[in-house]
């Protein structure tokens, strides 16, 4: 146990170093670009070391007509240092997709690896990687909005400070590196105290405002890791919205790589 802790802190230190390396490698950046990058690095750094987590998610879909639809999902995540995180998503509702499980290995720059287990077919199917801009379960969240934040996914530009609900925020513009992204840019509001994202504006491929994501009810876990209980995504173009409500967060539950592979998909619940 102790050795594991030591090992862990060593890895943490290493990855902090590598984050700094990202920072210092990026020469020839303008002052705004450097500051935008630094804020994002700090934000990522402050959350390092959560190891793994489980949580329940309720997804509420609304259309312009006022119709609602809910999805119930269980999420398991594994922190992967020096690469994107791994996640396992298990669907509980709608009933006809109960037991369906989705495994994703996200990567900072290359396409993510994704598999879906279909209980009706009792088979695991690989999913096309070009879907990152596509909607997750028919919601207003795209795959790329839900996958873990990695510093290398974007280039940055600091836009200034902005007051949001009485809190001072950095405003940082992020430009996706991957050309398969559905966005030209995102504008993120990150508070100056805890370095948490509070709001993100998404601009589509023709650079018009597409969606706004708002985070609320941040709670701190293990005196370190902040998670928002509520995320609301509003699509300005089609008038639809999706709300994510998180509950039962647990950290460091002892999940390991073996819980996140094709075989584990079939027994996930």
């Amino acid at each position, binding site marked *: 146990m102790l050795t594991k802790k030591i090992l862990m802190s060593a890895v943490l230190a290493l990855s902090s170093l590598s984050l700094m390396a990202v920072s210092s490698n990026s020469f020839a950046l303008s002052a705004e670009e450097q500051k935008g990058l630094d804020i994002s690095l700090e934000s990522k750094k402050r959350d390092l070391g959560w190891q793994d987590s489980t949580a329940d998610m309720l997804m509420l879909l609304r259309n312009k007509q006022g119709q609602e639809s809910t999805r119930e999902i269980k999420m398991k995540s594994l922190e992967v240092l020096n690469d994107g995180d791994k996640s396992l998503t298990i669907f509980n509702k709608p009933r006809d997709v109960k037991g369906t499980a989705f495994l994703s290995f996200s990567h900072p720059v290359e396409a993510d690896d994704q598999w879906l287990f279909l209980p009706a077919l009792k088979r695991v199917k690989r999913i096309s990687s070009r879907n990152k801009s596509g909607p997750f*379960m028919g919601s207003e969240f795209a795959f790329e909005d839900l996958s873990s934040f990695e510093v290398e996914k974007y280039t940055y530009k600091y836009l200034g400070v902005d007051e949001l609900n009485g809190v001072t925020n950095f405003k940082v513009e992020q430009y996706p590196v991957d050309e398969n992204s559905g966005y030209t840019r995102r504008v993120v509001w990150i508070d100056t105290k805890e370095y948490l994202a509070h709001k993100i504006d998404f601009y589509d491929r023709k650079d018009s405002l597409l969606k706004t994501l708002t985070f609320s009810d941040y709670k701190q876990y293990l005196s370190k890791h902040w998670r928002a209980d509520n995320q609301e995504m509003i699509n300005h173009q089609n008038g639809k919205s999706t709300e994510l409500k998180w509950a039962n967060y647990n950290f460091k539950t002892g999940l390991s790589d073996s819980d996140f592979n094709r075989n584990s998909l079939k027994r996930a619940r």
Partner: protein
Amino acid sequence: MRDKLYNFVGKNPFWVILVCITFAMVAGIGAQKLEFKNDYRVFFSEENPQLTAFESMQKVYAKSDNVSFVVVPKDGNVFTAEHLAALKALTKASWQVPYSTRVDSVTNFQYTYAEEDDMIVEDLVMSTKNLTSDKLDKIKQIAISEPLLVNKIISKTGHVSVVNVTVQLPGVDPMAETPEVATSVRAIKAKFLEQNPGVEVHLSGMIMMNTSFGEASLDDGATLIPLMFLVVVITIGLLLRTITGTISTVLVIIMSIVTTMGLAGWLGFYLTGPSSSAPTMIMTLAVADCIHILTSMFYEMRQGADKRTAIARSVKINLQPIFLTSITTAIGFLSMNFSDSPPFRDLGNLVAIGVMLAFVFSVTIFPALLTVLPVRVKKQSESKKDIMSKLADFVIAKRKALLPLTSVFIIASVMFIPNNELNDDFVKYFDETVPYRTATDYMQENLSGMMVVEISVKTGESSGINNPTYLHSVSDFSDWLRARPETDHVNTITDTLKRLNKNMHGDDPNWYKLPDSQEMSAQYLLLYEMSLPYGLDLNNQLDVDKSSSRIVATFKNMTSNELINVEADMIEWFAKHAPQYEVDFASPSLMFAHIGQRNIISMLIGTTLALILISILLGVALKSWRFGLISLLPNLAPAAIAFGLWGLLSAQVGLGLSVVIGMTLGIVVDDTVHFLSKYLHARRDKDASPKEAVHYAFDNVGRALWVTTFVLVAGFAVLAQSSFKMNADMGFLTALTIFIALIVDFLFLPPLLMLLDKRKNVAAANDDVMSDSASRKNVEVA
């Protein structure tokens, strides 16, 4: 009162001119507020049931405003590496169209196939670099056998394809958004053509149609209104030979139009295709007032009166008839308020306002101008009067033959009225000179029609669409629909599910069938949905709760009635085979198909009301209910004959034509009023026999009648040149009706009067005496 009016005008001509022009200018400023609404939805009122159904469907699924690039490779083969590369580039460029939310083309079609144990979802055309002829052939086979694509995105033979851009207008500034999209799309087209000289591109779709509404009207404004001014100047110049008169008339017309359009702006009107023809109509109708005043004035001057006296007498003589004809015309146009289509209500109100303003101006600033400006009288040749006199002799001599002949003609024409068919095909609202029309015609010939019906089949329960019973119903319905001869294309989720089932079974064609359990179907869809990129999701086919799905059926061009029949058949199919589902049918095509019927019914009520009002007015003005009733015949016959002839010529009656009866009623009444009042004047005051009275009427108003008819027919014939077919047909039929009205008044009414009046003398002599004494005051004005 009549004396006082001109006394004042004659004494203070400059003041009158100043006040009128100031009024016109102040009102005219409002014209800046006028904006053109380029959206087909303006044809429907808020409470229109088809519009409401369509709007709620658009809120549940995705909106369906679109632009289609119809791309035609000149070598007739879409499937060459070069052309596919071009299509790929066009698809990418189309994402840059403002407000675009989805782009569908052959190249980005989400092709699914099995590869070992995996299902691959990717663009049908991924890379165009190493396309061998084998690969090209494979792509072609996939495309032309895919039910989602064929006839919609690609032609059966693969010689034409479409890049369809779905646009979601935010509706914040609707007047600016549509042109913004159109401008962008045209720029993309121009650039594309520059880079691909071997290609032809047509632009179609709702956005282009909406753009055409505005542009056709603008073109009209630039060509028709100047043409109309030319007609006015030539008519008055040639027929009345007066420069001052022409200038003054043109001024009255301009002021009537400017003031009306200005008031429209102040009152918050907006312009639409139909209501943009208001200026042309006002211009046409305003001329008649001036002609009457000029004719009488010149008559007086030729008789030896000085100018001021002549003007005074002319105003005095004409005030009541002009007022009467203006008010009947206004009533006729106001009957358009019964229309179900707001643009026609606006048109009716605008022209009614314009006609009343023209009346006011022609008895104020018009005589004032004539007073101030120099007027010379040329000796008029009397030949015209001779013609009228000869015509009168002819009509009186041949009355026994004319009455049956004209009656037979009227009855024969009326018999063709049932030939007419209600039809509102919005594509045909534009003539072939409008690019949207040619593009859409081309699309209809090579791919699919523009008749689209969206069918939402609802289960009322979450995930209900995955139920095998539901899927089988939807699939059976789609098959039934496809088997109909008028169907071009059916877009249904069941095709996608069948394909996925096949993919999941190693692309075995035997598995091209619906999954047999709810879970299976739900999980296939989940897998598929999770694989789709941005903008190509299933939101346009499924609602958020997966409780209902939308089938989109595209039909060949057909008439409104045929489409309504197809709709009825579809309703019946569901009642018979799947009564447990709530089904909604909606689309712009259906909206237009139903508006004709709704409009005809409401316009009949409006026209009847106008007819009653006008007849009462005539009865009062002629001081005889009997003649009021007789006048009904020549008032109604022209429209009846015109629609009968239309039944032979075209037989397609749409929104534009359904208002013609009400509109022309107020105009054709004028001829009858003038003729009958002169006839009665002769009968009552001059003790003339019916024959003499007919002769008298011809001599006195015959010429004025044909001059005004000439102007009216010319004016509406100018409108008939509009590239906006709705206005053009309306103009043509109105011109035809007015022309027929003159013939009826010259050839049918006089023999009828000679016949009926004789009997009346015998039957109701007393009544005649009564009405005679009562009418004495009235006749002096007639």
